[in-house]
């Protein structure tokens, strides 16, 4: 009988991705380009989870999936911010990063960190870049003339900020906690990954709310 924790992190939260996907599919007519990118991101997330779980079932190392996933996740989110941010300098910076970061990731798993370990060099960097973009968007919408909660992109932005900021430390130390783990601390380890799963779920729910605000204005 799999434990509650297992059910939570490996079943409930990954299936939770279907909530925003479903709502987005329902609102498909009103979704603009930027929101469509978020939809694809969610589909990617779901697919990666399925792939990782399947590999785990067959006892194949599934961490390489994470490395590739990090690259694609970054490209999608930075393209999303490219679509919603207006400042010229910021857009130039993002475009540069869209080239530099994948190179950095590939260099990282070829020469620095084994592809079978957590990518603790690159994932926190990705988190910081995405957080910066998110804050830039907050700064941009500071003087809007429509009610804040009616803009779906605002909700996406909060979801992204919340997840990446909360998971930053988890990403940074993910290798270390695995290697230094002894039986005693397994509970705390599981707690940590539960927290991560909760953050993911929170992000999904915020995305779902964002998609639901997509009515014709």
């Amino acid at each position, binding site marked *: 009988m799999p434990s509650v924790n297992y059910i939570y992190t490996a079943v409930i939260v990954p299936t939770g991705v279907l909530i925003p996907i479903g709502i987005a599919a329902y609102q498909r007519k009103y979704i603009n380009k930027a929101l469509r990118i978020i939809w694809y991101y969610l589909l990617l997330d779901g697919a990666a989870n399925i792939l990782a779980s399947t590999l785990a079932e067959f006892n194949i190392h599934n961490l390489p999936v994470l490395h590739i996933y990090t690259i694609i996740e970054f490209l999608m989110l930075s393209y999303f911010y490219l679509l919603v941010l207006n400042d010229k300098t910021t857009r130039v910076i993002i475009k540069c990063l869209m080239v530099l970061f994948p190179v950095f990731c590939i260099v990282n798993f070829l020469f620095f960190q084994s592809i079978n370990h957590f990518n603790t060099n690159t994932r926190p960097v990705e988190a910081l870049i995405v957080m910066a973009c998110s804050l830039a968007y907050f700064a941009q919408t500071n003087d809007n*003339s429509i*009610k*804040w909660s009616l803009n779906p992109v605002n909700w996406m932005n909060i979801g992204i900020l*919340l997840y990446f*900021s909360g998971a930053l430390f*988890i990403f940074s130390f993910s290798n270390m*906690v695995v290697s*230094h783990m002894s039986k*005693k601390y397994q509970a705390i380890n599981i707690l*940590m990954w539960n927290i991560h799963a909760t953050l993911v779920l929170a992000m999904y729910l915020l995305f779902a709310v964002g998609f639901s605000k997509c009515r014709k204005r």
Partner: protein
Amino acid sequence: MQETIGENIFLLIIMCTGGISLLVISFVLLFIRNQNKLLKNRQQVHDGEMAHQKELMGAIIQSQETERKRIGQDLHDEVGGSLSNLRMLINRLDNEETGRQEIENAVDNYKKLIDKIIQNVRNISHNLSPPALALFGFTAALEELSDIINDSGGSFLSITNHAVTVSEQLPYNTAMSLIRILQELISNTLKHAGAKQIGISIFMENGLLTIHYTDNGKGYDKDDINNKRGMGMQNIESRMNMINATYTVQTAPGQGFSMFVIIGQLL
């Protein structure tokens, strides 16, 4: 050693994650509150402006209606009455047996009556649109204004124009609006202030055309809202808006009335 590291790391991670999440959540909540406040303020300002515009529109429509009523009344009383008279007289001539002398007298009467009708129509149309402005210019229109006031007795209007060239070059619409504004001010003075002296002076100040209107009447309380609506000040304000002019008013009960109008066009 390894175990201490392990314990610390977990707790650290959980604390930091909790800390950052708390930070982010409070940031987002504060941000939302700020946004809503901004929006509410903006909405209030917008509503206030809309209400003011509506009031101005109301005043304009009201004055149009009053004007139409006046025209209708003037036409009916003066022109209509005289034409009816004329008709009756011609009827009488038609019916009676009249000799040559009587016909000549009658024709004389008719001519006088028709002249009177023509004069009345002329007066009414002058009131509607003073031809002096279009034909002879701003200064002439001002003189016509002062003639009408001074001839009727009761009050004395003096006009001094130190900026003749500039005022003659005003576009027609601006000149027309200024004449109307002055007419309105004069009408207010005559109706409410009971002033004996009215002064209008026109000069240049800081490169802008300025008109100073004063009267030595009763004055009124500027802050009283009733005064604003009843005295056609809203019409004056609308006209000022249209010609891009600003104005300041100084008045108090018992201290007369003084208004500066500055036309904000570079001439």
